[in-house]
């Protein structure tokens, strides 16, 4: 097991769902000690999200939960009990970073608001991640990944103009928010350690999407610079003759992007080097009227190759063509395999499974992927770390505190 870059960092994790747990997964996978607090009755709702092996729901085998919570320790606390709140404040006193993703106001209702946490540990960072932030008129709105995509402004410009707008893949905006928040939290700890003072960070998923380079900020800026959005839900118009977009091949589809300067690469790929210097074409590649003629050159080549062949042959010439892979293609992709992206973990209930591994490879301090915890698996260990005896923990369990 390799020591990760964040070894020694202590994180108290009060998150649930997708975005918050994805942020704290980054801390856990990279070596921090992450203590995840779950409610005793069912725990993190991600335990009910699925997918489940053989489609049989079980609180310990939700695929989303297993992925989002690798490497964490799970403690159950019923925060409606004063004793549980006392335990929470003691855990906070030991933490460098406290992350929470409740609906705004929830912590205050439970009697452990930001001020109470700051009093328990004036040097800790409190990172609050929520849909709309801790202030403002939409603060209490309920939302999920699609609704956040809508309120980030990006969904309205995604899709076919004749149809309803369309969202990204499942939960993607929330995963994105988790990564941004993970960085915000680390930066705050960096500043807090230097200054010997705590910090409180309010992260709004809506703001992250509005500022994102995925057509958020670029569109908002372009609109002010030119009076037009850069991207709208317009049918993609061929701006020039060059093939760009999704094209069929023998066994599926490829995605192609082409620029004028890459014309020779295209010609070499499709076995027509004679066309590189064809003045009639080469000088008019901005002319969309030539699109049909160019397509007629490219289609026969595309349709006589598989997506993998087309990608490899074109990329060998420096022409960006890529396979539109389904998940079975992804699992056998030679590149992801060669990079050892897939990581097999064993789990008492879910068994041996391949998980997404490290997209970030830190050559000096790589970190380790470890399985997600069972509900309350570490309650005894964590409480004993606070000085409780095992008999105390039994009593707390009888009282419904843990």
């Amino acid at each position, binding site marked *: 097991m390799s020591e990760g870059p964040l070894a020694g960092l202590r994180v108290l994790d009060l998150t649930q769902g997708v975005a918050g747990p994805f942020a704290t997964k980054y801390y856990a996978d990279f070596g921090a000690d992450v203590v995840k607090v779950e409610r005793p009755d069912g725990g993190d709702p991600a335990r009910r999200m699925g997918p489940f092996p053989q489609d049989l729901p079980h609180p310990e085998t939700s695929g989303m939960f297993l992925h989002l919570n690798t490497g964490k320790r799970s403690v159950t606390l019923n925060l409606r009990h004063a004793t549980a709140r006392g335990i929470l404040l003691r855990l906070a006193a030991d933490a460098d970073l406290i992350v929470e993703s409740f609906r705004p106001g929830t912590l205050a209702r439970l009697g452990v608001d930001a001020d109470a946490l700051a009093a328990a540990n004036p040097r800790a960072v409190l990172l609050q991640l929520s849909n709309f932030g801790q202030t403002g008129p939409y603060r209490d709105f309920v939302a999920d990944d699609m609704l956040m995509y809508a309120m980030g402004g990006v969904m309205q410009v995604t899709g076919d103009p004749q149809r309803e707008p369309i969202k990204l*893949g499942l939960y993607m905006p929330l995963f994105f928010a988790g990564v941004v928040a993970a960085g915000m939290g680390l930066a705050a700890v*960096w500043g807090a350690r230097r200054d010997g003072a705590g910090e409180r960070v*309010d992260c709004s998923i809506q703001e992250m999407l509005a500022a994102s380079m995925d057509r958020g900020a670029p569109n908002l800026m372009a609109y002010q610079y030119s009076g037009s959005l850069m991207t709208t839900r317009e049918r993609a118009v061929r701006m020039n003759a060059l093939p760009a977009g999704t094209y069929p091949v023998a066994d599926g589809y490829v995605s192609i992007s082409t620029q004028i300067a890459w014309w020779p690469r295209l010609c070499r790929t499709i076995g027509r080097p004679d066309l590189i210097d064809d003045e009639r074409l080469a000088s008019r590649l901005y002319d969309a009227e030539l699109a049909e003629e160019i397509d007629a050159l490219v289609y026969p080549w595309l349709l006589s190759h598989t997506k993998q062949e087309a990608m490899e042959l074109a990329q060998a010439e420096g022409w960006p063509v890529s396979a539109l892979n389904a998940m079975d293609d992804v699992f056998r992709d030679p590149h992801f395999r060669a990079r050892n992206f897939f990581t097999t973990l064993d789990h008492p209930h879910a068994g041996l499974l391949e998980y*997404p591994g490290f997209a970030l*490879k830190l050559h000096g301090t790589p970190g380790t992927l470890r399985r997600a915890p069972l509900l309350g698996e570490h309650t005894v260990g964590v409480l004993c770390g606070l000085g409780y005896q095992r008999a105390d923990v039994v009593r707390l369990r009888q009282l419904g505190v843990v």
Partner: protein
Amino acid sequence: MGSERSLPLSGVRVLSQGIVWAGPFATVLLADLGAEVIEIESIQHLNPTRTNFRHIPQPLLDGRVGTYYLGRDGSEGFWNRQAWFNFAKRGCKSVTLDLERERGRELFYELAQHADVFIENNAAAVVERLQVDYAQLAQRNPRLIMVRFPGFGIEGPYRHFKGYGTIMEAVAGHTLLRGYEDSDPSQTPNSLHGDPNAGANVAFALLAALFARERTGVGQLIDLSQSEAVLQQEAYAFMDYAMNGRVQGHWGNASPAFAPYGPYPARGHDRWVAIAVSSDAAFAALCDCLGVPELASDARFVDAAARYAHRGELDPLVAARTCQHDARALMVQLQAAGVSATELLHQEEMTDDPHLRARGFFQPITHPEAGTHLQPGPMGTFARQPLVPVRGPAPTLGQHNEEVLCGLLGLSRAAYEQLLADEVIGTVYREDAHA
């Protein structure tokens, strides 16, 4: 700039060749947080975030490309008036160095000795060719952290593959997961999710390596694969395949469990309200608000499983009602009744959104050549060390040559003038960049 206030990353110096879309998302995060980000540019090969063109062809200037140049003006200096560059490089410095020449490279080595981090997303072999790869730099500054993030990472059979975010997302499987349920992949719209996602990973990674350096005393090389950073977020489909061998297709706007779910038409042209009903109580509240309480007791829609099974019948019934309502008013009404619902904000109107305004999200920033515009603010509100006002505009090309080369590196005036004369540095784009 000139603000000396203390910020979380004050004192952290980052050299950047953060290009196109992914790199810039890293630099805006880092600069907002207080890092000193020095963008290493070149007057011979411009950062493609500024431009791919020496002279922008008029048809492109009239079309989509023109939208991101101020006033669709492609005249001299347009590389300083680029919309996304002027967002994503705000608060950064610009130094031009011709790394193709030895003098430029030597100066870069000197900068690397004064830096904590070097981030770059050039095509995979570029830093080796320019001799500014990790081995070269670590020899001169063992504390340096280097983050490299070409599309497919720096190792593996696709490491030389070219292409933008759409290419990585396709190979990682995201594109096939997010089209309309009933159409083929050629109708799937573009998304650029992979780019900002990579930038956010870079910010996290270099911070993690800074923490490690506090203990180990040395820097390290970090290899980020943008495609894998997307793949690990396709968790629902990924785990389903790992567990059940099931290959998921287009989800469209469907939820795995709930109905009604999706955007529904509202009153007016291209107005939509997104609704996500996850409980019987929310469904009853929705039916009440829409004036069709009888639907809540309809046998076809009586519980979550029934609604999901009959969602094809339910959706038009909901849409027939939502289209009579104003999107914002319906959002407010439904939220008050406990139903997850939002309007689909139009980006043209976001600076007027009452919530974002109340939070003070948009920040006016004045750029010396582009003027004053509202920019999305920092992506976290810090109570003790506020990140607003943001630190300043994006730099013009080579704006900080003198400050950095003479100030930080202590070059003499004569040496500086010679660099200008030799076009190792400069402030005017000299040749076509080949992106």
